[in-house]
């Protein structure tokens, strides 16, 4: 698997085949990089953390809006 990811990174970084992205998010160079075993875990924690934060905020905003409407 690492070889596959390494190949992917090599193509992206060295040959820069798709290094100019359509989005402001930018160049899509592999995140699940080799030699960094905890990276997928860190990314999963970041994504989950972000989603939990977003859900909590949306629920709060939703409650506030409903409260304002009933008042």
């Amino acid at each position, binding site marked *: 698997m690492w070889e596959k990811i390494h190949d992917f990174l090599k193509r992206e970084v060295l040959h820069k085949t798709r290094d100019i992205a359509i989005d402001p998010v930018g160049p899509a160079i592999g*995140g699940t*990089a080799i030699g960094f075993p905890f*990276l997928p875990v860190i990314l999963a924690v970041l994504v989950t953390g972000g989603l939990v934060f977003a859900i909590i905020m949306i629920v709060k*905003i939703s409650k506030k809006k409903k409260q304002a409407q009933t008042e």
Partner: protein
Amino acid sequence: MSCFYILFRGVETVYRANEADLATIGIAIMLYNCIAFGLQMVFGSLADKHPKIEKLIGRVGLVFMLIPLAIIWISQTAIASWISLVICALLNAAFHVGGGMDVLKESNGKIAPSGIFVSSGALGVVTGTLYGKSEVGALLPIGVVLTASILLFLTAKTPSKEGTFTSNKPFPSIILTKHGVGIISACLFVAVFIRSYAGIIWPLGFEKIGFLVLLPAVSSCLGKALGGIIADKVGAMETAVASLALSIFLLFLAGDSWIITGISILLFNMAMPITLCGLAAAMPKHLGFAFGLSTFALLLGYMAYTQIAFNEISFINSKYIITILGIVAILLIALSLRSKTNRYVGKNS
């Protein structure tokens, strides 16, 4: 532009100096994206709560960008690249969310200003990347940031608490469905995620040489700007659904034609300011969070790409994947936004 200059200058520096392997470079770019696009949601929420932060955050993000630019200009070492990368990512998050909030607040109920604001990013990415890879110094990005800062302080007024923004009817051309904030936000969030992922795997049937290097960025920029302008004229829902549908149709006609590909990318990006303003309309008292939520969705689209990469999807398959995702995005937008015409039908009946 400055951020991508720093990012690619740093990448070139550490790679050429053999101070980092490819994995480190991959991590550097992932780190930049996580900070710059993930933190906007947090910064936005803080700005919503604290007016002082809201007033300053955009300006700080712009003016202080001179610091990482100066660092990378003076010292071309791996450590300087890392430090400037983190600082510029933080400042990018601050500038985007601050600028985005100001634009939403002072847009007089129009979607077009937000479209124009977000559209410039695509050109910044391409010019910053090209400039960062070249051998020249940081004079151009420093000059651009300096000019923009001076112009900002000379021309921009401090936005009032509410601006021209009215919480009851923030955007006349955006009519939300009767679903709750949760459902509307979730639908628009997934629509942005889809646009981000599909945008990255978009198949190009031609070689990106010469001016064609700029084509995806120029198309994306024009699409976002035009999306807002047209939505103000004909309605947000109509514009988003029609542009996405037409874009998917053209995707299959494109073949190796760069003109049709450019038009299909342009059309696909027209929904961008609509989804942003849709989120803002759903939570009008939390504009910072709404802006940050859309950039978090963009980040997730990028992360999905790092897991399911373009290389693993064939040219033909990517068309089908984009088609399915595009149809899902159309349905999600239709669940969130109502047609302008429906409103009148409803009134008459």
